[in-house]
């Protein structure tokens, strides 16, 4: 890192055409209203399809949701006025579609394999309120992304503790569908891993910013690739071990891969060393394959993936995957329309396999749109990462964006049989609170970073110098 002085373009008298930077909050509001219109249309669609009239509770659910997101919008106006105008509307659109799907599934709750209480829609709206509340809180508490760097090790410890917690607790309160990933408090459950991922992303960013110069040092050169020095392998080994422990003790291959992928991607962004990517990938695949050989439940995932239709698989182990595929197939190009399909046949369609429910009812066209919405969020996040100057923020935004992309890839790829199916939530769409709240917090961090990336440089106080200090990376 070096500091040099360059003329500030914003006040260069030779270039008076440089436009004043704009916050684009009005764009955000218009896009939000557009998202509300889509959600209202989807809601009405469900009602007309299932009962032939508008859902009686549509006004209250939709009204509450509009109110909640408008609060989010006002908070952005006040707390992050230069933030990217697309992040909030895109997240709100996905969240709204998730609520509509929860409502749609709850209407036929008796047909579902796993129970969904009639109040599920209300609860989902409540979770959205909590999510947007946390979104506002993150924006209010973290006015400058750099402050998070101070808590590198604290957040790292918190993250690991959250990950380890369900494994240490008795299965009676932590096990769900064979994976030990939750904490059950009465009827209320929390999946700590959702929050652990955020804490660890922040922690990784802080750690890597501090150590990246060392980690970038080249060791031995093998096959044209600069391998890292053996003494620098410590951190990646720790994370690798942690992710494998997660895999083995919590049977949570999905989170384990997201976790490892996040670390490796951030390591790569920090050091620009391809060898880290390769090393991380090879380590994870070897570890996962070894675990597949050693532990039945991991190996089973591969069997289901490779041979879902053979033998007893379609009616037993691969039942869920196969039913999801059948659902998407019955949806075809344009879908059965919201409320027109039979997504309730697929087990856990309200959470892990919610993507297939959209595939069945909105068809290929709807799924492509949803994937593009995710793609846009990731793209806006990466754009913020590229334009923000502070390396910590850069790394954090890059890591968080990649993590979101990876999570979508793992679950969507899983339910469409691109890769083995592992049960993780679909951000914003799945029914359930932890994932929704954590996703909103992730968006809050991206909003915060994009705000600092797009904020115009402060006007120089001294006119005579016409210079300012910038940091080149």
């Amino acid at each position: 890192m070096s500091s040099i002085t360059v003329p500030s373009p914003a006040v260069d008298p030779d270039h008076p055409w440089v436009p004043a930077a704009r916050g684009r909050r009005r764009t955000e509001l218009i896009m939000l209203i557009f998202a509300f219109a889509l959600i209202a249309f989807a809601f009405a669609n469900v009602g007309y399809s299932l009962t032939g009239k508008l859902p009686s509770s549509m006004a209250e659910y939709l009204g509450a949701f509009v109110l909640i997101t408008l609060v989010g919008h006002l908070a952005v106006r006040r707390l992050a006025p230069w933030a990217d105008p697309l992040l909030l509307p895109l997240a709100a659109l996905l969240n709204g579609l998730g609520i509509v799907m929860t409502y749609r599934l709850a209407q036929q709750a008796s047909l579902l394999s796993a129970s969904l209480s009639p109040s599920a829609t209300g609860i989902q709206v409540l979770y959205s309120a909590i999510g947007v509340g946390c979104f506002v809180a993150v924006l209010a508490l973290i006015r400058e992304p750099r402050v998070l760097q101070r808590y590198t090790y604290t957040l790292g410890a918190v993250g690991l503790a959250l990950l380890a917690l369900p494994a240490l607790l008795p299965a009676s309160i932590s096990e769900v569908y064979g994976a030990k990933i939750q904490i059950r408090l009465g009827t209320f459950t929390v999946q700590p891993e959702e929050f652990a991922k955020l804490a660890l992303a922040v922690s990784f960013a802080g750690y890597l910013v501090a150590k990246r110069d060392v980690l970038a040092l080249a060791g031995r050169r093998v096959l044209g690739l600069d391998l890292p020095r053996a003494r620098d392998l410590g951190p990646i080994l720790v994370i690798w071990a942690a992710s494998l422990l997660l895999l083995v003790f919590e049977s949570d291959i999905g989170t384990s891969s997201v976790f490892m992928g996040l670390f490796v991607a951030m390591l790569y962004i920090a050091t620009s060393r391809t060898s880290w990517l390769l090393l991380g990938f090879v380590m994870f695949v070897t570890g996962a394959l070894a675990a597949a050989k050693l532990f039945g439940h991991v190996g089973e995932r591969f069997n289901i993936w490779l041979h879902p239709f053979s033998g007893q698989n379609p009616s037993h182990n691969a039942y869920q995957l196969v039913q999801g595929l059948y659902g998407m197939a019955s949806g075809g190009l344009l879908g059965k329309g919201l409320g027109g399909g039979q997504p309730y046949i697929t087990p856990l369609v309200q959470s892990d396999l919610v993507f297939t429910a959209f595939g069945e009812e909105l068809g290929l066209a709807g799924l492509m749109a949803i994937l593009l919405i995710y793609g846009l969020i990731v793209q806006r996040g990466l754009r913020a990462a590229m334009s923000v100057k502070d390396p910590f923020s850069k790394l954090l935004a890059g890591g968080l964006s990649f993590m979101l992309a990876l999570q979508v890839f793992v679950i969507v790829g899983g339910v469409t049989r691109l890769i083995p199916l592992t049960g993780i939530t679909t951000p914003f769409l799945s029914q359930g609170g932890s994932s929704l709240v954590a996703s909103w917090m992730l968006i809050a961090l991206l909003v915060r970073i994009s705000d600092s990336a797009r904020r115009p440089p402060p006007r120089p106080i001294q006119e005579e110098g016409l210079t300012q200090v910038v940091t080149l990376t």
Partner: protein
Amino acid sequence: MNRALRRISIAVLVMFVLLLVNINYLQGFEPASLAAKPNNARAFEAQFQYQRGNIVTSDGVTIAESVPTNDVYKYQRKYPHGPEYAPVTGYDTLYSQTGIEYYENSVLNGSDSALTVRNFIDLLTGKQRKGANVTVTINSKAQDAAWNALQSDTSGKPGAVVALNPQTGAILAMASYPSYNPNVLATHDGKLLNQADQALLQQAGNPLLNRAINFTWPPGSTFKIVTSSGYLTQNPSSTPQTNVNSPTQLKLPQTTHILTNNNGEVCGNGSGQASLLTAFAQSCDTTFGSLGMTLGAPTLNNFAELFGMNSKTLKIPMPVSPSNYAVPNPPSQALTAFSAIGQYSDTVTPLQEAMFAAAIANSGKLMTPYLVKQVTASDLSTVETTNSPQLSQAVSPTVATDLGQMMLAVVQDSDGTANAYNTAAVGFTMAGKTGTAQNGVNNTGLNDAVFTCYAPYDNPQIAVGVIIQGGGYGATAAAPIAVQVIKAYLASVGK
């Protein structure tokens, strides 16, 4: 760091492209194969979500329809004429289909690729998708006559009737007795369905069997059409008036068995020689046993196959059980003699009987029998029309004319075996051949009554094959049924 971020962006792009390509493949190309998986509950239930197409006769009588219902599924399959048309329609149950319901399933349920564009237009215009209607070649009057005759005239004996249009091969009637009521199998209650199915399987007489095309009996003397074809073709100078060897008793070589005619009757004037026409009209076994031995079993086999026997591939679209002619192995003159008169191991379906007459009626040109006339989409546009090809040239037109004269003599000559149905008696001119197939150990069983015929003689409109198991003489048990079918059909087409 931006260079690395850019590469990460590319990686993300690749991930999303992979997902997009994969869902395009899954939802764009895979639906058909996934819908065909046996455990796909959605595809299973989807078949009841749309109104299945009707099956109607060529003269517009609906024989299978789907009516709206209020139970778990939207439509209930109904067969307004029940057992009469069961051999044609088959049944459509929760789990399986038979007959036209099975072989035209994809057009009836609307999933056929020929209907894709129409379904897509229906989707865009918001019209409820509907299966296509199948029009079968059956003439309802002929079918009614066949079914009523089988029910009332045979005192409960099993049998079947098939009527063909000789010029096209269109099946005008196809009735089998005993039959079953497909409505009981169309229930949406799995338990009731199972009970009904078990009851039908255990019921005496095997009502689920379509005897018209899936059961064979000895053809008896009707096989003399084949033997005569061989003789007339191989001896081009001969005519129906040519005298052939017609002893009262025919000693069979290498056995002590002596072949006699029915009740030991003499053939012709008893001189030991009779014209082919007379021998055919009187159905002299000695004449045709002798001709068969002269022709040889391989020749008989050739002509039997020209008339469609031994074919394992005939479909109407339901597969037709092969009618059998077997060359005796090791070669045996005696068995060849028996095979020439429709005994030994010769067996035929009622459809095959109709095909014998149809080939003669159509100048020797045998048309492939078919049951589906056309498929009509729900918007009444024609999806496909059947043009059935020629199956074979069984005999030359000259030989066909000769055989026509001989079959005419069977009905019209005073000593013909079916003289009771001459023009004066029935009101139209019929040509035919009776068969009375001996049965059981040492032929102690009841004879099967067989009759094949066509009418009117000078302008053939219909060819009919009838077999009544244990019916006795072909002329008394089978021929009256054919007469009723022909009468009903000719009346309905105004001839």
